[in-house]
């Protein structure tokens, strides 16, 4: 590209970046605006003092502390469960030889043929039959295995040199020991990647918690935020204050673990 063209492209992209950031700034500014000042036109951001009291008021309008706790519990359990099941299954697929392995792996992958939405109703009926509606078990149980996770970890495990395991095997280590002592410690980056991705996915999930959690005490942040939207329809500063609070944990995680985040997304698409 020519120098000028390059500069033009970069300028365009910076403009796009600005466009992605502006709504966030608008969210924050509205969150700090007085309830009636938000309805001034043309919209002027923060006139006079910043109304920090919007935050405690919005967050107690519905029990958001409980929502955050629920989201954290559910997301953490799902992450731990997915790491556990995915790593074990991936180890079997990547390292052990047994009849029908490749066909079974394809069978696992074939789950991806079924869009999540197709599973929504029957999964709900199963969870309902188990009596798990409106419980943590209902929110967590269906998410404990991720075929993507198995796929990614299998790809990663295959890159670990076999010599390390063979040495352990000569020392008489069993498969479980090799898995725990050799493969898992070497896979920390991959595990961290999967953990970050599945945590964020879980935190953002909306439809499943919407149908499973019935009582206020069992709601997660995303659904709680939507409920606040319904209750305080015209109070934009409250809604924005809650929205900011709901976004902060994810943005913090993104900024801290950006490397894993990006790598995870790139692994799903490319590797």
């Amino acid at each position, binding site marked *: 590209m020519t120098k000028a063209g390059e500069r033009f492209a970069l300028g365009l*992209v910076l403009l796009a970046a600005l466009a992605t950031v502006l709504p966030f700034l608008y969210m924050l500014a509205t969150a700090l605006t007085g309830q009636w000042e938000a*309805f001034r036109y043309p919209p002027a951001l923060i006139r006079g003092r910043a109304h920090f009291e919007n935050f405690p008021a919005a967050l107690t309008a519905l029990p958001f502390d409980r929502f955050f706790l629920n989201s954290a519990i559910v997301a953490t359990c799902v992450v731990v469960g997915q790491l556990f099941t995915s790593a074990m299954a991936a180890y079997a697929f990547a390292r052990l030889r047994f009849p029908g392995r490749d066909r079974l792996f394809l069978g696992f992958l074939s789950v991806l043929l079924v869009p999540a939405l197709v599973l929504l109703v029957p999964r709900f009926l199963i969870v309902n039959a188990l009596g798990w509606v409106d419980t943590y078990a209902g929110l967590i149980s269906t998410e404990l295995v991720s075929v993507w996770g198995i796929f990614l970890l299998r790809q990663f495990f295959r890159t670990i040199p076999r010599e390390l395991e063979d040495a352990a095997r000569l020392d008489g280590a069993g498969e479980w020991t090799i898995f725990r002592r050799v493969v898992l410690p070497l896979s920390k980056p991959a595990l961290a990647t999967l953990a970050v991705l599945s945590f964020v996915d879980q935190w953002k999930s909306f439809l499943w918690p919407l149908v499973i959690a019935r009582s206020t005490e069992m709601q997660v942040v995303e659904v709680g935020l939507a409920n606040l939207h319904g209750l305080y329809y015209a109070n934009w500063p409250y809604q924005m204050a809650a929205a900011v609070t709901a976004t902060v944990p994810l943005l913090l995680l993104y900024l801290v673990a950006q490397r894993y985040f990006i790598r995870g997304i790139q692994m799903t698409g490319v590797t």
Partner: protein
Amino acid sequence: MTALPRWRAGALLAAAGSALLTLALARWAARRYEAAFARRSAATTAAYLALVTPPAPVGADYSLPQLFIQTRSLNALPGWTPRVEVYHGTAPLLEAGAPPLTPGVLDRLRGQAGASWRRGVALAPLFDRDRWDVVGAVAIRPVGIAPGWLGGWTLPALALLAAAALGALRTLGGEWEAVRRALMAYGAAGVLFGAAAYVNVQQAARASTDQWLADARLLMQEASARLPQGRPTLVDLAPLAGGAQVAPGDSATTRPTRQQVGGVPSAVVEVRLSSRRWVELRTAPAEAGALPWLALLLPLALIGPLAAWGAVWAEREAARPQRLRETAAAWGFLAPATLHLAIFSFAPILLAVYVSLHRWSLVEQERPFVGLANFDQLVRDPAVWIALRNTALYTLTVPVTMVLALGAALALGRRTWTARLARTAVFLPYASSVVAVALVWQWMYHADFGAINWVLSLVGVGPVDWLGSPNTALVALMIVSLWVQAGYQMTVFLAGLQAIPRDYLDAARVDGAGAWRRLRTITLPLLKPVTLFVFVTGIISAFQVFTYVYVLTGGGPGHATDVVAYRLYQAAWAFLQFGSASALSLLLFVVLFGATWGQLRLLERRVQYD
């Protein structure tokens, strides 16, 4: 080869156990239908006796001699099959020598609605004429509903199964081709056996409905003949009908038949009350709900063949203990994920198919089989077509976003700090709360006070009622989606671009190819797998968009933003039509199959086996 007999003995044991368990389950299921018949029949009989027995001289109780006569004549009724006994208080009426009921039983009957079932006898409470107190009980011992252990086709099927199993076990350790054939035969015999057992269950289910209809018909006709004041009204007969419907009917066959009533399969019998008066008794046929038994019986019947297959394999592998150990370890590692996928991914698909063929609501007890009625309703529902159209339009965001994302990836692939900062920024929306994003956009879209209309007013456009007008609402949602997805797609494209060897581009540059030409002839072709992946996964997720619609528009205005996912949510959780929602799920499955198949093929290409 000392291991040989052990594997063989295990397989033999599994074969016997599998056959026995299948028989036992089938018998148990049939007995359940028998019990259901008896309970229903007992309640109907009690209602009949309450209707026809004259009162005692004082109080609301029945005349004891009359109760005795009515009960005796019941057992003598032509065409009546079950054995009836009536307890007045706790004392048996017909067989005076039989043991009386314990007082506790009567108390329990008072407390519960309907009849109880114990030791092959159903007991229903007999209420007094005021329907206030329980004055006794009606006991029904059913006859001829459940086939015996080896009734129907099970005996020949069992003989076949045994022959196939012994044949398979005899060939064990022999030539592989012979073993394979014997195992196949055993498996086929297992399927046949499971099916035969299921046929018994199905017949018991059918018989339980038919027998009850026939008996209820007899009792209704008998009641209308005996009632002193002449014709019983439909209200009088309602208690006899239990949960069934009574409708005006006409003379027809007097045997129970299966008919479609309002699109729902029903079991129907015509009842003659007098020479001119016929009513029709309708109920849900029990056999329509018997299919789940097949899902239990078949796997049980196949345990034997699977065990034999395992024995064959184990014998072949016994010479290589390392391989045997590795297989066992692998299945240990795979157990949690496999079990979970079976319960929460594969079973739900079968369940969705099953539910879609039924009228299925969480609040109604009856879940009748309706065939393809749910699908028929879907394709006739204009709202479904609108939702499909909107969803298809919505997926247009995918190619648009891809072009922007690819452009951003090309421009931001460098290692300068501005590029990094811009990358971080563009990715932010994807890494933040979905509902929060939806809310801020809703605020920006606000028709009167929104920031977007203000910006537009500066250039003299608007105001536009973004979410309130059917013309713009869907576009408004698509813009939000684009804003969120661009960062994600850019990230994937960046990885794809990095994987392109620099040498190719440098060589092209040396050859004098311009930027545009390099992009078209080198970058894009090499990026094709990544592009396909982004496209396919983008389509799959766009087809399932829900949160933005739920938060921003609720499908409105009108149906302007109604999408498939929202329709499905409404069908299931607003209208409680889970059958219809399942049918819609399967429709979505079919529509998206091309995309998901593409995704699977792309992944498969990345998988190497050794």
